[in-house]
């Protein structure tokens, strides 16, 4: 097979897979730079259905050091193996091998020295750079670590851009805040989440294997972590040296205020040693509250229980027992305030209608665990995880409905009210969610859940069944993609579907609601839908000026044939047919549109047709009258004939008499 060229800069050899460098969401292949040599490279052909962190790629540009597998470019290539276009990421290839081949691998435990100098020191520096740039790695785990060379002295962090944050992370590597969300919705998180993952990775290196290789029941596992702390549940009975215990306790504590920041880790690496402190457990209520058959002793546990048992949680929340538990047993002013902010007073909660249970439960859960994910109808995601989740689960009707319900539930306002300082990025996402909430219910193309998908995934590709395989991420690529589709024999019914309309509306400033709204309303004009589609595509083609599209024009020509046929005047119709053929051959949709969308000509044709119909009717009426006249000609001719006879006789008589008198007188 011929090598695949990306942007005329990189040559990807699809016959040389680099299995040791694969990631869960992409396969690695040999790659070389066609320009200036940049050391060893590898190309990762990514799973199209999993959104990549494109903004992270840009933000990591110029990242210093050699202890991170850096992405140096990205793009889309025609991938012969899959017979479609796929996204590709170009990485600097680590010179050494993977530290853990898989999460099930067992290796020789690393020594303290190896860990401190070979792993922690560079990892802390890397995470400091991430934090400085306002970024998080969110993909730190033993199977995403590489030795920087064959000597296996220095360990580098693997890539962090091929999947949504935390998507490929096993549950134990996620902090409670992120781990309670679905894999796709774990969100970008904070440096504290990276430090938690660093702690569990560190533990894996210390013991040479995954500390919790199997989780039977994720719900119970998370519940245990909430109640007895992540440290106890992850470190468990593994024998850890005292000096490492201090670091691990600092990194694996669930209390964000207690978790070591980077500076503390740096100090520890530099040699500061303190007496290990016990991991602080969440404050217990005076008595537990039963939810779904389990006694919950703290707020986060109760929130977890309520969110997982949401169908019955409404009754629990409205019950007097819950109110008493919150006010008396828990005795936490912050939680009470949160509850008031999110769900209102006790009276308001108790008088809340049953139909509103899902929203009520979500608000109460939010109030009990404000730093956790937003949980609604059994679905849990951080606000910045909603977009990636929608992208991954869009084809799953149940999960998509859950995301849709969350967006339309209107509980995001309460989420915002409960947050302290919110990052600009999250505020932007909140703004987008607020903007699209009313659009979800709109039925027309360009709106609905598809619009949410593209608004929330600005780098996402269009997943219209027509062009999904072409993996287009920019509106400027749409016309060439449709031109490629139009080249096939089996054409879809229309060149624009709900996905393409939503993709255009979300990603192009030139296609606004004014242009899309007509797609919602039908009128009686033949080929009406095709003409509306043609108007939109004409605009896209003229805005992006990306060449002619003769096949697409031919497709549109066929679709708009009824509009041509609707011209009444035969000569005009033939003339328009000739013009349409000529215009479609040019490949410019605007030319086609100018002919078929000329309302003056259409109106004139209509008016003249109406006049012609009237004239035909008048002619018919006249013929009918004359036919009757012909039938009654004897009657008509009788009277007229007698008149004529009288006149003729009168004239002859007058002339004869005059002539006679004159002759006689002469």
């Amino acid at each position, binding site marked *: 097979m011929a090598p695949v060229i990306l942007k005329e800069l990189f040559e990807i050899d699809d016959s040389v897979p680099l299995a040791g460098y694969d990631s869960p969401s992409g396969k690695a292949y040999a790659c070389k730079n066609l320009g200036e040599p940049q050391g060893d490279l590898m190309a990762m052909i990514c799973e199209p259905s999993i959104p990549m962190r494109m903004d992270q790629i840009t933000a990591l540009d110029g990242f210093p050091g050699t202890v991170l597998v850096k992405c140096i470019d990205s793009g889309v290539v025609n991938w012969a193996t899959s017979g479609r276009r796929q996204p590709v990421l170009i990485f600097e290839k680590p010179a050494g091998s993977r530290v853990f081949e898989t999460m099930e691998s067992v290796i020789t435990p690393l020594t303290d020295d190896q860990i401190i100098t070979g792993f922690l020191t560079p990892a802390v520096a890397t995470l400091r750079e991430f934090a400085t740039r306002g970024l998080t790695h969110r993909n730190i785990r033993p199977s995403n670590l590489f030795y920087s060379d064959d000597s296996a002295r220095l360990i580098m962090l693997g890539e962090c851009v091929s999947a949504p944050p935390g998507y490929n992370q096993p549950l134990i590597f996620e902090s409670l805040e992120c781990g309670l969300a679905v894999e796709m919705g774990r969100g970008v998180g904070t440096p504290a989440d990276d430090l938690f993952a660093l702690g569990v990775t560190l533990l894996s290196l210390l013991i040479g294997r995954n500390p919790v290789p199997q989780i039977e029941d994720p719900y119970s596992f998370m519940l245990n972590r909430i109640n007895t702390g992540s440290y106890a549940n992850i470190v468990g009975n593994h024998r850890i040296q005292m000096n490492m215990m201090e670091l691990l306790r600092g990194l694996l504590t669930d209390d964000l205020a207690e978790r070591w920041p980077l500076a503390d880790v740096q100090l520890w690496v530099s040699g500061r040693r303190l007496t290990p402190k016990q991991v602080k457990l969440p404050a217990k209520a005076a008595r537990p509250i039963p939810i779904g058959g389990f006694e919950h002793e703290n707020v986060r546990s109760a929130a977890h229980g309520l969110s997982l048992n949401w169908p019955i949680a409404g009754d629990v929340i409205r019950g007097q027992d819950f109110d008493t538990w919150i006010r008396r047993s828990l005795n936490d002013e912050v939680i009470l305030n949160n509850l008031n902010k999110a769900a209102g007073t006790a009276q308001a909660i108790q008088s809340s209608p049953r139909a509103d249970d899902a929203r009520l439960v979500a608000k109460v859960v939010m109030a009990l665990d404000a730093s956790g994910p937003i949980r609604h109808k059994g679905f849990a995601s951080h606000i910045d995880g909603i977009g990636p989740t929608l992208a991954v689960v869009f084809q799953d009707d149940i999960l998509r409905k859950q995301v849709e319900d969350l967006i339309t539930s209107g509980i995001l306002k309460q989420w915002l009210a409960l947050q302290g300082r919110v990052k600009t990025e999250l505020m932007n996402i909140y703004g987008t969610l607020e903007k699209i909430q009313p659009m979800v219910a709109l039925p027309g193309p360009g709106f609905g859940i598809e619009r949410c998908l593209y608004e929330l995934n600005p780098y996402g590709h269009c997943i219209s069944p027509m062009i999904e395989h072409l993996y287009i991420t920019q509106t400027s690529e749409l016309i060439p993609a449709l031109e490629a589709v139009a080249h096939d024999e089996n054409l879809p019914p229309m060149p624009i579907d709900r996905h393409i309309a939503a993709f255009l509306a979300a990603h192009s400033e030139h296609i606004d609601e004014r242009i899309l709204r007509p797609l919602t309303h039908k009128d009686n004009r033949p080929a009406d839908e095709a003409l509306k589609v043609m108007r939109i595509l004409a605009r896209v083609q003229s805005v992006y000026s990306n060449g002619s599209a003769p096949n697409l024009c031919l497709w549109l020509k066929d679709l708009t044939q009824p509009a041509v046929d609707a011209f009444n005047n035969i000569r005009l119709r033939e003339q328009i047919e000739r013009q349409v053929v000529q215009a479609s051959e040019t490949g410019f949709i605007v030319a086609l549109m100018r002919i078929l969308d000329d309302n003056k000509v259409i109106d004139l044709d209509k008016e003249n047709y109406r006049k012609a119909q009237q004239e035909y009717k008048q002619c018919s009426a006249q013929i009918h009258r004359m036919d009757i006249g012909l039938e009654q000609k004897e009657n008509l001719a009788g009277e007229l004939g007698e008149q004529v*006879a009288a006149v003729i006789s009168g004239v002859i008589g007058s002339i004869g008499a005059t002539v006679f008198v004159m002759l*006689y007188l002469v």
Partner: protein
Amino acid sequence: MATSSASASSTKAIIILIIVGLLVFTLPTVLVLMAGMIPSFIAYATDRRREKYKTLSVGCMNFLGLLPLLTMLWTKDHSFDMAFSLFADPFSWLMVLGAAAAGWTIFLIAPSVVAMFLSARIELSVDRLKRRQNKLIEEWGDGVSGNNDTRSNTDNGG
């Protein structure tokens, strides 16, 4: 009012007196006219139209045939003898009746001629209208005739 109706009655009486006077003084002429215009009287009697087209047709021609006899009467001898001698001449009757027959012939033939002319004119008009209709169909298709008019149903919005 009474004055005006009295004057109208007196006018009528004067006119009747004048006519009676004239008739008395022109009795030979009256005799010739009464006898010669018999075909016209017959036409009048058989004419059912209010407009009396038949009477006019026959009467005009009849009078034309009688005019030479009247002229002879007035120029030669305006007497009963002359009047009787004129009617004794068969040629006179031939002339009078021939002229009346010509009038009658005109009256009988004219409607047929007019009917022919009318039907020719109507057929020409029908042909012209049908040609126009065909031209409209050529220009606009069958739909313009209202038969099989699928087009007009579909282009309401267009």
